Structures are given as structure tokens and as C-alpha cells.
């Protein structure tokens, strides 16, 4: 038997999947590279799991894994948001240049 909270999680997953499909389908191919780096940065939210793992300090082994996981995820978050913003700053419409 699947427990009730797992079932709720499945609903959440399904709904988020639908939202993702609907929103991302509308994103112009122009921005597909920054889209990928943005979703990658958002994915780094896995860092919260790693923080709890390292912070709970249940064993030296799990703490070590947690610490490496935090480093990996944090570098993704910081680097991902940074490069996405750098890319998006470069996208300019014409018009300002015409004189």
C-alpha cells in the first residue's frame, strides 16, 4: 500500500509536470540556452536536502557526503543564476541603435 503522503507527493509531481510543460512550451527558442541554465540553477534547490543531511551529523560518512553535495549544488546555484543573468543581459531588441 502506498502511504497517503506519498500519494500526495505523486499528485504534486504530476501537477508540477503539467505546469512545467505548459510554461516551457511557450518559451521562445531564442532563450533555450538561458532556460537550461536557469532550470539547472533552480534544480540546485536539492541543496536543502544536502544541508539537512550534513547538519544532522548522524555519521561521519553521511556528513561527508552531505558536505560534498552542498558544494556541488551551491556552485550550481551561484554559477547558474550568474551566467543566466549574464546571457539575458545581452539580449537586446533593435530600436535603441537606430539614429
Amino acid at each position, binding site marked *: 500500500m502506498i*502511504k497517503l503522503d*506519498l500519494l500526495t*507527493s505523486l499528485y504534486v*509531481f504530476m501537477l508540477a*509536470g503539467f*505546469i*512545467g*510543460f505548459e*510554461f*516551457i512550451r511557450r*518559451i*521562445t*527558442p*531564442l*532563450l*533555450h*540556452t*538561458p*532556460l*537550461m*541554465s*536557469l*532550470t*539547472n540553477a*533552480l534544480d*540546485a*534547490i*536539492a*541543496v*536543502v*536536502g*544536502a*544541508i*539537512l*543531511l*550534513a*547538519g*544532522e551529523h548522524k555519521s561521519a560518512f553521511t556528513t561527508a557526503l552531505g*558536505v*560534498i*553535495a*552542498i*558544494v556541488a*549544488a*551551491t*556552485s550550481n*546555484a551561484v*554559477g*547558474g*543564476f*550568474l*551566467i543566466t*543573468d*549574464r546571457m*539575458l543581459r*545581452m*539580449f537586446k*531588441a*533593435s*530600436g535603441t541603435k537606430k539614429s
Partner: protein
Amino acid sequence: MNIVPGAASVTEFTYLIATALFILSLKWMSSPVTARRGVRAGEIGMALAIAGTLLSHDIVDYKWVVIALVLGSIIGVPLGLVQMTAVPQRTALSHAFGALCVTLVGTAEFYLRAPAVPRFMMAVLSLEVILGALTFSGSLMAAGKLQEVLPQRPITYKGQNVVNLSLLAVAVAVAVALVVHPEMVKLFPVIVAIPLIFGVLMIVPIGGADMPTVISLLNSYAGLSAAAMGFVLDSKLLIIAGALDGASGFILSVNMSKAMNRSFSNVLFGAFGQEQVSGAAQTEARPVRSATAEEAAAILGAANKVVIVPGYGMAVAQAQHKVRELYDALTKRGIDVKFGIHPVAGRMPGHMNVLLAEADIPYDKLLDMDVVNGDFPQTDVALVIGANDVTNPAARNETGSPIYGMPILDVDKARMVMVIKRGMSPGFAGIDNPLYYLDRTLMLFGDAKGFVGDIVRELGGTHH
């Protein structure tokens, strides 16, 4: 549920807000006008969720957490400041990092819970670790190929697919055994190790032209493994972020394989290089017309409407800034210049757009394949820079061609076609391009950056 105000509910509340901000972040990515707001929303959501987590009572020791957060930030900054031409390999590397985090946390969670792991939990844990591990090693391989520290040519051998699929089957079988008998703790390393090997072998036969699809697919796997981690930790925030990332990667993979008229399995299991040996043979004898930079400049200068088609060759030659100068020189003469972008031009989705935007070309001049294909019949000159297969008319009418059926940019419908190319060697896939032998095609032999620079100089010289 206990709704007493306290650290736990504060933490949960930050997760709720972060989730909303993440969804808004993707919504705002739909247009270049609001996209930067989307990045802000994502950053705030991330910061809130991390702050909320740090408030959690479950954390007993902050020292290592803080050290790791600082260290990660220090590593992240240079990864955020790489050159735009290095974005594909940076992206592959970040898939690897994301997958590493998920795999490590999954591994730790298993050993914390073992041997009494409920079946559903063990199933998602296996999914998390298998997807995470193969994405980790596969993305590292992809990054290595893109950075050219590994050989880029696809490496294939007989029985490759059988070997790969058997490996994956073994990993899945062991995972199933663990779901049924979670007390067999010693089996766990197998479902980490085998996918690590599988990830490497999966990328070995992948060539450069398939990278856009493969990077998207790895993006999707990274997202799905994070969502699986959300199930294990019962974190709705993580499930949603993972589902969004998984959906994004999936849609991009579908777009990329459609743009190549190939199925996922064909990309992953049918390495491009091995299929066609036929086409290359009859290339030598056929005559082509070539032109100098001076002649090319004269033709371009007399045109009313020019469409530039960039490909990976432009990125390799770092020619985007010279292309911008050409754009300026032609626009100054009142010539209408647009860019036709094929979805799989370059090494990742949207690669050309980023390079051209970096060179300050306005984004409203960058047209998708579907839009620009309607323009070619009214175009005086189509100038192809470092693109090959995506302009190959064989895809339209030669049923025997390996790329038959692939949607292409119809440059051959323009009144005149100019192709900047190093030599007559066939492209990545080894497929001959009939475009080069058309009467209205002029081959401009040379390095993309140098040749475009020469054309710009000629245009400047004849200006007054």
C-alpha cells in the same frame, strides 16, 4: 498537522514561497523582456529556501554546512563567468554537479534508513541513484567532449548497444532485488557503480551534432533524479523543482530530436557516424563555383535582403563579432539583414542565439527556422557561415540520405547562396551537400572569421 508557530513551520513557509517564486521564474522566462525578472525570482526563492533550511531544528552542527556553502559559492562564481563559447560544456558540467548532489544524498539516505527501507521508498531511491549516477558520469563525458579534452568523434564498436543495455538491465534488476529485499545492503553500491559506467559508455558513441539532444536529455534526467530525491525526503519543493527541470529538459530533447528527424533511441543508440559510408565517394569530381571576398562583398552590397545562417563553424572560429561587423556594414547601406537559426545549430539548444546576442545583434533579427523559411524565396543572398547539414537539400528530396526528412533551412530557395567553408570536406556526418554544386551557389573558401573580416573590409573600401 501541527500549526504551532515555530522554526519548523517557518521553514515550511519559506519552501512554499520559494515554490511560487520558482514557478513565476519559469513563467517570466517566456520573453526576453521579463526574463531577467525570472532570474531574480529564482534567486530570491533559492535564498529564502536555504535560509529557511538553516533555521531548521534538525541541524545540530553548522560548521561544515557553512564551510560547504562558502566553498560552493567560491567555485560557482568562475563557473558563472565562463566565456559564452564555453556555455555548452559549462551546462554539461552543471548537470554533472546537480546529479552528483542528488546521488550523494540518495546514497546517504539509503545507509541512514537501511535495512528497513519501505518498498516505495526503496524504488524511488533506486531511481534517484541510478538516474543521478548515469547523469553524473554521462554529463562529465559530454563536458569533456565539448571542451575537447576527450575525442569528439563518436566511438562505436560491434555489440555496443547490447553491452550498454545489458548493463542498464543489470542495474535495474539489482534495484528490483533491493526493493524486494532491502536488507541486502551490500547490493546497494552496485546500483551506483553500474550506472556510473553506463553513463560513460552512453556518451562514447555520441558525436558533436547530437550534443544538443544529449545535453537536453541529461538535463531531463538531472531534473527527474532531483524529483525522486524529493519523494525520498518528502520535500514538495524539491519534487516541484525537479519536475519543472525534468519537463524542461524533456521538451527541449523532443524539440531537438524533431529538428533532426530522429527518435531519442536513434540519437542514443544509433551513432551518426556509422550509418553512411555511401555519400562521400562521389564528391571529388563535381565542379563548384568559388569566389573571393571582393566578389562576395560586391554581391552582398548590391542585395536588398540578406539572410545569414550561422552554424557551429561560426562558434569554433569565434566569428560572431566579425559577423556583427558585417551586419553593421550591410545595415548601414540600407540592406535588410536577418539571421536564420536552426534549432540544432551549435552544440546546445539556443547556442547560436546566445553567441549572436553576445555580439550585440538585436534579438528580433534572430529568426527561427519556421519563420525564416518563408523568407528565403524573397531573399537575395543567403550567407551560410559554418553550417552544413542543417542546410542540406538532400534532407528534402533524397530518400536514401541519412538525413532525409530532417527539417532544414531552405537556403537553396534564395536567389543566391554563399557558403563560407574551410574546404570541400563533407561535414560532421560525412554527408555530401548538393547545395554546394548548385549554379547559384558560390563557395567562399577560408576561415569563417578571416573571410567575414575580409568581406567587411571590402564593403568598407567601396563605401563612398
